[in-house]
């Protein structure tokens, strides 16, 4: 009994003394059309701007849809239309700032950009390949029926390993294909202008929120403390006409 209690205490102390690990992944900042999030063991719900991203969350985008989200501590994750992505892991050591993250791309397009502050690695798992990402900007596209994965590197260097064997290093401006049961194709040069997956990939661009197009303002109405429609009350209160005056 005492041994079990001591072991529990020890485990608790070890957990408490370990470097702080945060599991928050990021926040949705732009949404276009149909974007849904399914928490682990939960049911799908529409994702909206401002929603947080938790571990195990599966994000699905519909046709002509997309989403952009922060990928903490310093990353940007953009999904194109008809994408299915699961956030498997995102651990940030708050002492060293190093992180260890993993995503699964089941279908569709994804762009991941990591900033200078992102110290660590991201592993992207697809049906046919595993992509190792470290401080870069890349696009991953998975063809759903075949699982064929195309990895295009916009900036930096990534390693792409086929699940059936074979690994290549892909540099900026190069792309590789990984088909089921095959090793990655040798990296080939691509047109740099075709590599950018913006938030508008697969459809029209994200429009800025309606309220941002036209700056908005107060709808001043009469308040109970106003004897007069506008200037009589609230912040401009003071002696004035009385209700019966």
């Amino acid at each position: 009994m005492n041994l079990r209690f001591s072991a529990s205490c020890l485990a608790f102390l070890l957990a408490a003394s370990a470097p702080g690990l945060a599991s928050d992944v990021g926040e949705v900042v732009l949404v276009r059309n149909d974007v849904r999030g399914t928490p682990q063991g939960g049911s799908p719900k529409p994702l909206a701007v401002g929603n947080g991203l938790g571990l195990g969350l599966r994000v699905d985008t519909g046709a002509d849809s997309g989403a952009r989200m922060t990928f903490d501590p310093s990353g940007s994750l953009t999904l194109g239309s008809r994408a299915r992505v699961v956030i498997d892991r995102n651990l940030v050591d708050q002492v060293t700032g190093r992180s260890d993250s993993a995503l699964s791309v089941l279908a569709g397009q994804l762009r991941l950009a990591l900033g200078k502050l992102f110290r660590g690695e991201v592993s992207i798992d697809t049906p046919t390949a595993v992509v190792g990402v470290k401080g870069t900007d890349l696009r991953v596209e998975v063809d759903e029926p075949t699982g064929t994965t195309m990895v295009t590197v916009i900036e930096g260097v990534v390693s792409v390993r086929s699940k059936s064997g074979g690994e290549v290093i892909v540099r900026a401006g190069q792309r590789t294909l990984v088909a089921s049961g095959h090793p990655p194709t040798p990296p080939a040069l691509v047109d740099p202008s075709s590599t950018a997956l913006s938030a508008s990939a697969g459809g029209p661009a994200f429009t800025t929120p309606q309220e941002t197009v036209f700056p908005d303002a107060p709808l001043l109405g009469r308040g109970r403390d106003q004897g007069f429609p506008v200037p009589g009350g609230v912040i401009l209160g003071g002696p004035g006409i009385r209700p019966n005056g």
Partner: protein
Amino acid sequence: MSRTRSNRPLLLFLLALLLAAPLATVRASAAERSTATAEVAFTYGVRAYNHGDFAEAVRLFREALEADPGYADARQWLSLAERRQREGAAVVTAPGFGGLLPLRDQPPFDLRLGAAYGTDSNPAQVTNRTFGVLTRVVHDRVTDLDLRAATYPFYGRGSDDPRNGWSLGLTGQVKADRFQDLDSLNERQWSAAVQLAWGSDPLGYLTGPLGYTRVPFGHSPFSLLLQAGRTDTRINGDPQLTADEAALTLVAREAVVTATQVELDVQRRNYIDGFEKADFWSVGASQFFFLGRRDRYLRFGVSRGKENDGLRFDTTSLEGTAELALPLTDRVVVQLAGSRRKDESESSFPIFLSSRFDTTTDRVAAALSWEVGRHLYVTGRASWSERRTDTPFFIVSPVLLAFDKYQRTVASVGIQWVW
């Protein structure tokens, strides 16, 4: 000649230096260019924008553009963020406005304390003529104190998107007017209200007949406000009017340059501690026309109301209003308004000499608000009103003195502390 030859190496060195400097700068800039940096800065910039932190958004969008000068989205968002940043200072003059804070950081309560001092040309509302005799109108000086406190237990509840959820506000206000000479006209008023709102607003609050309440920042096409409360007014310490009130307000933002607000208000009025009771209802609609920005607008409104009481008069009213809000600078806002109201009153009681009379009331007002410091505003107001009644007879009731004509002008300066 020899002097020229001796200076040539120095000149060549300076020339080379001048040529090399821009090249070095270009190389340095090129080295800093990064699509990854631009993408990340842009995404976090949008997040800052969504949270209302426009200064941070501007910084991040600029960082994105430095890293990728061809980033068109970042340029567009930078322009929007800069505009919102400029307008931020202007909109804080709005009632109860606490700044464009992220929803989760909105304070759960607010407080406003105000004091004003002014002159009132006709506080007793004395007519120009009584029983055919010219009367002397006495003017007086008045001090006004005003305290409003509100708490907001929740925002945007019941929806995945807080901007489309329910918000609750509980508000209370006390107000006192004290005249320098005419003590018998001193007025005190307290009010309390429960306000349930649905939807969001670009400036984070909705207004209705019972005042304003906070809601999430956003731009829902429709917003709804349900209000219920009580107002108690006393003159010289004696009960004057207690009104139990409920109201429904609907705001439709049908276009970027217009919005429509419809209000329905019902009241049970209790005059002079139960001496007389009346039911009142009114329906009003107003149309906003925004002049380039949302805090600069023209508003036209019309409302119809009716008060039924068994003892005095049944009064039907029709009122038209026009209102102009004009921000002069980021810190100074001017508002102008005018209205005309027609009341048709009919007595069901035979003791009155006239069973029916009409009253027309015109009002014009101007107000200026100047934000002199954080939380502190200086305000100035002036209003003029004239009431004309078409009956030549003297009609008296417990609470309404209806004469043939009276005028009143009020002007004041004050300070407001808003937290």
